[in-house]
Structure formats: structure tokens, C-alpha cells
């Protein structure tokens, strides 16, 4: 069938393609925060959360949730990488050769991650030292590749951008919740401030909760506790959202 098309219609087709690349197809010409688009943002926060429902991106959820600050920076870094890689892949989706599409996606993600890493090193040096290898490991974050394959390759630019933000937010919110509990219970601090009082060498010298003999739970600082907190979050989420429970 393709051979029957004359040269002129081929040109037209090419022009139309170009338009599609930079604008969007008809299905997407809706209000920029229509119900569907809002769903793209809100779905990953609850019903389709990358960590608690799809169980993706667990590795970094264990590694950088000892304190709140690196967890938030990590969430922001993932948001930037995910939104823009989704966008770029969506722009190029009709140009990317199918056989090397995974490599292309990896290169796009990797270069965005390197950009984020360089920017952090220049403007947030201490945080970048704290995150150390984990910024580089965003490249291997399964959520990003998953969204590129499942969404950005088949959807318009704006929708892909929203999907990226939504999924990164769903990932980030879990990260922040886990980090909140681990920092609070593990070291009695939030953002490095001693919210539970100051722990001195003896009980008498301590203030706040520590003066009653409260002890920090050192287990919270170890990675396995992040898994257990994620497990509890999944439990809480399914108790509140019954449709997530598997029927069989």
C-alpha cells in the first residue's frame, strides 16, 4: 500500500508528521489540565504508585532515605530527569529507530543524569557528596525506563511530561515519607534539627524525650528498615484503597 502513495502525498504526510512531532495529535487537544491530564498526575500518587503498587525503584528507596534532605533532593533530581526524558523521548518517538530504542532512551536518561550531577556539584556540593553514587544510579532507576517504554513512546509531548512529573512525584512522596520516619526514629532529627530534644551522655543532662530515657532506634538507620516501612505503607495504602487488593 505504501508504494501506491504518490510523491506529493508523501510530502504532505511528512509535513503532517512534523506538526505532530512538535504539537500534538487531535486526541491531545484538550484543556491543559483536563480530567485525563489530571489523572496522569494523580494516578501515580495513589492507585498506580511506582513504589507501593508497581514495586519499582526500590533500590534507591532503601539507599538514600536515612535523612530527609537527601531524599528530597533525590526526589527533585528524579523529577527533573523523568519529566525531561519523557518529554524528549516523546518528541523523538516517531524518529527513534525501533531496534536501538532502548539504547537511545538510555543515552537520553544518562545525559540528563550527568547534567543533574554536574549542576548539583556546582550549586549544591554538600548534598551531591551525600548522594554520591546514587545520582548516577538514577540512570538505572527502573521507573524511568519503564515510563519511557510504556508511556512516552506512544503518547504526546505534554502528556508524557505530565506522566513523568506524576510518576516522579509518586516515587518522591514515598521516599520522603520513608525518610521522615527513618530520620525521626533513627536519629531523633528532622532536616538535621533535634526535634525530640538533645541527647547527652547521661539522662540527667539530656533534654526533651531523652530525659525520660527514650533511645533512638539504631535499626532505623539500616537499609532493611526502609523495606519494612515501605511494607507498612503498602499495608496502610491497601487498607484504605480496597481496589488495590488482588482478588485471587
Amino acid at each position, binding site marked *: 500500500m*505504501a508504494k501506491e502513495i504518490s510523491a506529493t502525498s508523501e510530502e504532505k504526510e511528512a509535513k503532517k*508528521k512534523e506538526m505532530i512531532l512538535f504539537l500534538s495529535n487531535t486526541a491531545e487537544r484538550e484543556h491543559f489540565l483536563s480530567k485525563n491530564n489530571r489523572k496522569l498526575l494523580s494516578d501515580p500518587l495513589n492507585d498506580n504508585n511506582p513504589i507501593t503498587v508497581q514495586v519499582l525503584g526500590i533500590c534507591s528507596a532503601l539507599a538514600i532515605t536515612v535523612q530527609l534532605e537527601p531524599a528530597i533532593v533525590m526526589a527533585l533530581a528524579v523529577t527533573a530527569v523523568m519529566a525531561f526524558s519523557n518529554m524528549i523521548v516523546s518528541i523523538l518517538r516517531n524518529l527513534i*529507530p525501533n531496534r536501538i530504542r532502548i539504547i*537511545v532512551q538510555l*543515552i537520553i536518561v544518562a545525559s540528563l543524569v550527568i547534567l543533574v550531577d*554536574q549542576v548539583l556539584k556546582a550549586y549544591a556540593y554538600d548534598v551531591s557528596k551525600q548522594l554520591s553514587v546514587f545520582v548516577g544510579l538514577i540512570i538505572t532507576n527502573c521507573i524511568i525506563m519503564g515510563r519511557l517504554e510504556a508511556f512516552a513512546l506512544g503518547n504526546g509531548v505534554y502528556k508524557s511530561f505530565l506522566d513523568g512529573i506524576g510518576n516522579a512525584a509518586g516515587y518522591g512522596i514515598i521516599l520522603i515519607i520513608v525518610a521522615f520516619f527513618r530520620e525521626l526514629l533513627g536519629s531523633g532529627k528532622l532536616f538535621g534539627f533535634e526535634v525530640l530534644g538533645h541527647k547527652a551522655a547521661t539522662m540527667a543532662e539530656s533534654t526533651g524525650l531523652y530525659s525520660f530515657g527514650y533511645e533512638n532506634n539504631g535499626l532505623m538507620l*539500616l537499609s532493611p528498615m526502609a523495606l519494612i516501612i515501605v511494607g507498612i505503607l503498602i499495608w496502610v495504602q491497601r487498607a484504605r484503597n480496597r481496589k488495590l487488593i488482588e482478588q485471587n
Partner: protein
Amino acid sequence: MEEKSVNRTNTNGYTFMFAIIMVVIVGSVLAFAATSLQPLQNENVRQEKMQNILATVGIEVDRAGSEVLYNQYITEAIALNSDGSVNEKADAFTVDLAKQLKRPAQEQVFPLYIAEIEGEKYFIVPLRGQGLWDAIWGYIALKDDVNTIKGAVFDHKGETPGLGAEITQVWFRERFTDEKIFDENGNLIGVSVVKGSPDPTDKADFKVDAISGATITGDGVSDMISERLQHYLPYFKKQQEIKVAIQ
């Protein structure tokens, strides 16, 4: 029509062209970003170095404020030749220890920082060695007797977070405070990081407690301290001779 475009993007020529163009674009974007952010990053590294040097003598300061205090407390930064004489040509602060260690032993130049705080004089020796995965480095400050450790700071390139990477933590660094590096006969022993909880109050046993799960990094720290300090012996000997002569 859709098939047509899929076929077009599936040809070998198109695939190669796409790959080449993409790599060129991505490469230039990254090169541009790296070059334009380089000055800011270098400034951060420089300030951090000053911050680390100050931390060994007990002055904790944030990165931004480190330069002022560095200029205030570090009275001298000298580069030494391997025979202990002062190398006038080299700028001590910018000497790259990693590069120096690759040169023949006789040609190496080592930096030494001398701090003066409230009348006390401290010698700060930069360290560099090998951890489990990659380079580790640090600074160790000796008191005026060139025997007692005032403080130490360690850092690493790629040690395991939570294990080897813990050498950067204050609680590990504090274990070195007041340890001795010479035995009674004046032989350099250094400080070893050992398993089995040596008595932390015994400051003359040349031992500090290791970190569980970080044996090789700990050994790297021990080696780095004794290895680097021995290169400064000729200089310290000269200093002591001068002192004796004055007395």
C-alpha cells in the same frame, strides 16, 4: 502510511545516522555543561579542601566561611622535597598529591600546612592512599611535638556507603585524636585501624578501633598514615635539630 515510516526508521542507514547525530548532539551538550560549570565546581573543591584542613585542628566551619579562617589560622603552606628541604618553586596548596605519587620517589613534592592557633603550632600532613574500591585521602594534624595527633579528616572517592564511606564521619575521626605516632625510641609506627576494640582510652597503643564491614578501607587508612608520614621524617628531624640548637 504508518508502516512506511516504521520501515524507514528501520533501515540500517537511518539507524546509523540517527545514532551518530544523537551522539554528537548529546556529546556537545554535555561538554558545554561540564566546561561552563567547571569554575564553580573547582571553587567548591578548593573551599572544601580548606574546610578539611581546618577540621583537623578542631576548627569546624561551613564551606563558604572556610577561606577567611584558612587565611587566618594557616600561617604557612610549604612544599617539601623528598630530602626534607623546602621547594620554593611549587605552590603547596595546588600540589596534586595523586599526581606526585606517580612520579619517581626522589622527584616527589609533598605539601605541608602549618597552623597556629592560640599560640599552639600544628603540622598538617595531607594523606593519600588506596581504599577498597578507589582512592582515599585525608589530612592529619600533629601537635608541636610532632608525635601527638591533634585531629584527622578522611575522605574517599568510592567506598561503600554505610561501610567504608563511614571513615568520613566525625565519630571515626575522633578516635585518632591524641594517639601517638612514634614509639619511645623514636621509630615511626603510625596509627593502625584494627578489629577487636582496642582500649579507646589508651592513647599510646598506636591502635584505633575499626569499622565493622570496612576492614580493607580501614587497612587503607592505616597504610596511608604510616606511608605518608615517613616521607616527612627528614623535615621533622630538621625541625627538631633546629629546636635543640636553639635551646
